[in-house]
């Protein structure tokens, strides 16, 4: 044990002699862990929020009764089914605005709520017997308080913070309805208020209506199945209560939100892995370098009697300690990064998918364990080769401090072979595979192949340059570069990947912005979008608008929801007008498409359906309408960026005919530019419209742009971090080289080259390598951009963007890369610049 302890101490103390390598190892592993665990924390948080939302009110266990398009229906259906003997419980759900904050209101009936629906989220009501007998929990809500006016509104603590409210406060909704006093309770989805059905109906203006019925898991004996009863009662007890009929829906086990957001999270994960991989490259380099530098030390220890087994175990233990330390630092950074990014992620998830994700990061032990495991496993993977070499180290092998460099030449060749293998894999994936995962695998394989071949390319370039160079200093310059290459090739590989990804993502984001803004102009051609809210008001509003000269067109709209291929889908009913015909962004269409769709013979589908569900123009598809299945031809495809759901565009009258419960009191208004504000003001005042009832085109465009900026914030942030990691790699690579450099430049100094000239030559060399790497990164970046827009984006979001190139961005990146290289080599250059002659002379005394 003592022997082992001293072996370990000896190995650990060796790091003191090599602070640069220590820094490289720790920084590499810490940044790898940080990015990986940061992304994991974001994903964990989001997934937990989905799971909570899905399991809220027993959603994951309980079946429900709804109308086909999930519109509210008469609450007397609840009574009818209860009186028929079925254990069902009413829920009313909808969104309100509090200030500018959208909040979901869920109303429940405690008397009939199934046990599985109460779950953890309603623990605040009543508490349990223990609390009661202790009689200390005065804040526990009494059920009578919940049931009787004014009721209680249960919210997550963070929702209370977001609303700038305190416990017990009664807020007002944007429609000036008074909310029940708010009380916090754990386990409630963010941005959600759970309250009794009575105040909920009032807040949502759904008096006498319910959104769905929860079905208890156990039903009384001797009753026909509920699905059958729904059919049987349709013409009797349920007659007229839900015109579109009621249907039994299975529990949402595979919850829609998880499925909808899968691609978003895969995107994040892929970036996390990419960064992790770059970090591991650094660790691998550091460990390899240290091992070679320790050859003499280890040979001495072996000669002193330390067994190879003992030495290997000590080295492994050392690695474990360092990896744990680096992992801990990485986790701390990762947690901070995730915490900083989470609000943006939450906003994009809410905007894109309507998913509610808690804005504050929760700390989870599993996440911590996974992060540390990944750090240790990553370090082990990166160091496996070196540990093996330690195990096999011949006792009497002479310490050859520079022999590893010769071996690295072999490595370059071997890596080139691996590169070939990965290129082949990438090609295979490109030709044969499909799906988002394959898309990322393709990108990974391509990047790996490019990184592995990079040293070989640089080596060949340097050799060519050396062969064509004249003059001893220039020849030395290239030869020295080649000799130096192995030790900084890892950093250059990291730089290559970081730059390529940067170029790729930059092209995608830039291209998106260019396309999206144009598309928004087409899609939002009309000036005002109005929700009348009720049929009576719609008629009155129409009359008022028709009297306005400035209003050039009033185009009724309708919306309905349905399911297509087992996922939620939307139906958009439009009124034929040049506003659509002239500017609607159709990607493909059949001849006479507009006329056929307007007459109800055909429909348009959005790009998501076209690509994701592979529906062709001219194909017939069947939609499940409340009035029966509807087989209809697809006459065209329109681009629908940002929509995560499938959408069908149908003539408004056809929609209302087939979906009697469609939301219909909506208008698109064409208004003369100078009169937009006046008309908006007129409508607002006359009909007390809220922000969500009357939307101005300009505001909508601004909002859409914000959503997309937020969506790409995460990508952009990870992008920058990857570049930082590459910079750290370069810095640590050069630092670790610094001490080894002196013996190589000392003879040149002795030959008469000044220290300054040597330092500048050194700097020039690093900068040239960085510049060449950056230039090589451009074609790779273009390839990445293509993979992102043509494969990954299509798989992830269902829409394809045109590929744009931004040469000015590339130039900027090359300059940035060279600047990073300059910054990284600054300490080394400065050291050489200021190296004292005695140190340089000492080289000769020490070495020879």
């Amino acid at each position, binding site marked *: 044990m003592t022997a082992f302890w001293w072996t370990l101490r000896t190995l650990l103390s060796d790091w003191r002699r090599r602070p640069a390598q220590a820094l490289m190892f720790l920084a590499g592993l810490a940044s790898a862990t940080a990015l990986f665990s940061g992304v994991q924390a974001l994903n964990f948080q989001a997934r937990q929020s989905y799971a909570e939302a899905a399991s809220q009110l027993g959603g994951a266990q309980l079946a429900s009764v709804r109308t086909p398009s999930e519109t509210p229906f008469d609450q007397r259906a609840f*009574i009818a089914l209860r009186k028929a003997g079925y254990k069902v419980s009413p829920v009313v759900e909808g969104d309100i605005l509090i200030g500018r904050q959208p909040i979901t209101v869920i109303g429940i009936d405690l*008397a009939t709520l199934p046990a599985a629906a109460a*779950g953890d989220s309603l623990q605040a*009501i009543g508490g349990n017997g223990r609390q009661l007998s202790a009689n200390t929990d005065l804040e526990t809500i009494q*059920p009578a308080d919940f049931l009787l*006016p004014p009721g209680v509104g249960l919210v997550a603590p963070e929702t209370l913070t977001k609303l700038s409210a305190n416990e017990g406060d009664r807020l007002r909704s944007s429609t000036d309805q008074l909310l029940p006093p708010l009380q916090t309770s754990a386990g409630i989805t963010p941005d959600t208020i759970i309250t009794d059905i009575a105040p909920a109906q009032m807040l949502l203006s759904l008096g006498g209506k319910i959104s769905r019925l929860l079905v208890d898991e156990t039903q009384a004996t001797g009753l026909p199945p509920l699905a059958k009863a729904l059919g049987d009662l349709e013409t009797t007890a349920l007659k007229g209560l839900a015109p579109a009929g009621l249907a039994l829906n299975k529990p949402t086990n595979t919850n829609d939100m998880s499925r909808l957001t899968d691609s978003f999270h895969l995107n994040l994960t892929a970036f996390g892995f990419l960064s992790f991989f770059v970090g591991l490259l650094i660790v691998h380099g550091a460990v390899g370098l240290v091992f070679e530098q320790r050859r003499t030390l280890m040979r001495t220890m072996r000669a002193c009697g330390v067994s190879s087994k003992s030495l290997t175990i000590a080295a492994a233990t050392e690695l474990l300690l360092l990896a744990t330390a680096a992992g801990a630092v990485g986790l701390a950074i990762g947690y901070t990064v995730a915490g900083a990014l989470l609000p943006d992620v939450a906003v994009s998830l809410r905007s894109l998918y309507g998913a509610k994700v808690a804005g504050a990061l929760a700390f989870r032990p599993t996440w911590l364990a996974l992060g540390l495991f990944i750090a240790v496993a990553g370090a082990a993977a990166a160091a496996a080769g070196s540990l093996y070499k330690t195990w096999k180290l011949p006792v009497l092998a002479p310490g050859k401090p520079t022999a590893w460099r010769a071996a690295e030449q072999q490595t370059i060749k071997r890596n080139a072979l691996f590169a070939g293998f990965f290129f082949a894999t990438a090609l295979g994936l490109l030709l044969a595979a499909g799906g988002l995962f394959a898309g990322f695998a393709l990108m990974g394989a391509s990047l790996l192949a490019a990184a592995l071949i990079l040293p070989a390319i640089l080596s060949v370039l340097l050799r060519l340059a050396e062969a064509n160079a004249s003059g001893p200093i220039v020849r030395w310059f290239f030869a020295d570069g080649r000799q130096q290459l192995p030790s900084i090739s890892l950093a250059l590989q990291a730089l290559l990947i970081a730059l390529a990804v940067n170029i790729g993502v930059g092209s995608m984001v830039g291209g998106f912005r260019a396309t999206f803004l144009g598309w928004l102009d087409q899609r939002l051609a009309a000036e005002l979008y109005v929700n009348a809210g009720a049929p009576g008001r719609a008629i009155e509003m129409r009359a008022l608008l028709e009297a306005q000269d400035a209003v050039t067109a009033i185009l009724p709209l309708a919306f309905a929801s349905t399911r297509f291929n087992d996922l939620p889908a939307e139906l958009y009913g439009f009124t034929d007008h040049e506003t659509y015909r002239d500017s609607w962004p159709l990607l493909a269409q059949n001849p006479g498409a507009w006329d056929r769709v307007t007459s109800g013979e055909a429909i348009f589908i959005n790009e998501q359906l076209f690509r994701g569900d592979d529906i062709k123009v001219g194909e017939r598809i069947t939609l499940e309408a409340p009035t029966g299945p509807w087989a209809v031809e697809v006459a065209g495809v329109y681009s629908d960026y940002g929509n995560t759901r499938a959408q069908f565009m149908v003539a408004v009258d056809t929609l209302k005919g087939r979906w009697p419960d469609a939301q219909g009191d909506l208008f698109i208004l064409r208004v003369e530019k100078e009169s937009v504000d006046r008309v908006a003001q007129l409508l607002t005042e006359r009909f007390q419209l809220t922000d969500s009832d009357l939307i101005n085109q300009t505001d909508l465009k601004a909002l859409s742009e914000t959503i997309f900026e937020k969506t790409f914030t995460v990508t952009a942030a990870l992008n920058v971090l990857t570049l930082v990691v590459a910079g750290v790699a370069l810095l640590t690579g050069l630092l670790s080289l610094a001490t080894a450099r002196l013996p190589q430049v000392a003879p040149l100094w002795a030959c008469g080259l000044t220290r300054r000239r040597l330092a500048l030559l050194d700097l020039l060399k690093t900068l040239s390598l960085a510049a060449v790497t950056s230039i090589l990164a451009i074609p790779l970046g273009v390839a990445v951009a293509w993979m992102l827009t043509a494969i990954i984006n299509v798989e992830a979001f269902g829409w394809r963007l045109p590929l744009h190139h931004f040469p000015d961005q590339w130039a900027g990146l090359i300059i940035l890369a060279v600047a990073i290289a300059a910054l990284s080599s600054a300490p080394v250059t400065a050291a050489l610049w200021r190296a004292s002659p005695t140190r340089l002379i000492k080289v000769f005394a020490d070495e020879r």
Partner: protein
Amino acid sequence: MNGKRTILALALHVAFAAGFFAFGSVGARAQGFASLAQDADGFKTVTPGRAFSFPADHAPHDGYRIEWWYLTANLTDAEGRAYGAQWTLFRAKLAGGGEDKESSTAGDTWSSPYLFMAHAALTSEDSHTHAERFARAGLGQAGVTTAPFSAYIDDWRFEQTSESGLNAARVVARGDDFSYDLSIKTDAAPVLQGEAGYSLKALSGQASYYYSQPFFTLTGAITLDGKEIPVTGNAWMDREWSSQLLSKTQTGWDWFSLHLDTGEKVMAFRLRDTAVDAYVSGGWINADGAPEPLTGKAIEITPLNPPRKNAAGAPTRWRITIPSKDLSIEATALNQRSWMRTSFPYWEGPIKLSGSHGGVGYLEMTGYTAPAEKRRAQR
């Protein structure tokens, strides 16, 4: 934690604080004491000298904290096997004061101050199954109407089938593993308990309005384990309403309804107390329906197998003596495990009588600890 049951247990804990159900919940017992001490402020109070009229008094009485329609039946099948059936509807006012009416006038249908709870059970020698339902008043999910009489919650019904008055009725309920459909009839008039319907529950003045209809005869069918069994028997209806039933030191009660072979009926209860001797009271009902109140030493109720101190369980063998009527009987539970594992657990089941008189009856015991259930873990 089984969230909903606890929530509703607590909902009713508040609602039924004055009722005996508060005693059933072991966890809530401490709070139960506190609630019992509450004044009946905001609720109507029970005073002697009330005039009863039928069928009007079958209807709910607004403004009281708690009211129930309670039907227990002793059944026998063709092979002579004994069964018991229970059908109970409770109506509670959630808070004192405010609206006394069932339907809110606030414009929405959900804000009624009344809440209904119902229990149904079917007991045989070797099984005891039960179910529980809740409903808010004012919606039509549960309610009680007269002319014709109908007490209902979901598809459970106790409704008049006779032309006028409550002389014949149909009683229906179903749970997850049982159901019954019983027809009851009688020619007798309801019997006022206590002093002309004023039933004292403690010497400190807690009381209820209380009348019974113990003379129902019954035919019908029960369904147990998916098998329908025709049955005949006797049924007993209790009607009681109050705002403050028990004193603050009373811990639970033991209540008996007895159908004697000789045609007389006996109601007896014992309210256990931590401070003073148990309060014992009852009523002898002659075969012609004439009641004789039994108070003080006129009736003695003794448990023969009381549970050990602090142990779970309830006495299932009792001695009842009424010296003035030469009655000395032993009452034994048909099924010792007749626990109602509802939001507030209590014991309720059929009993057999032996001794000076034979017969059958029903026993209800509250304030004991239900032993852990073997089949499903009890919360």
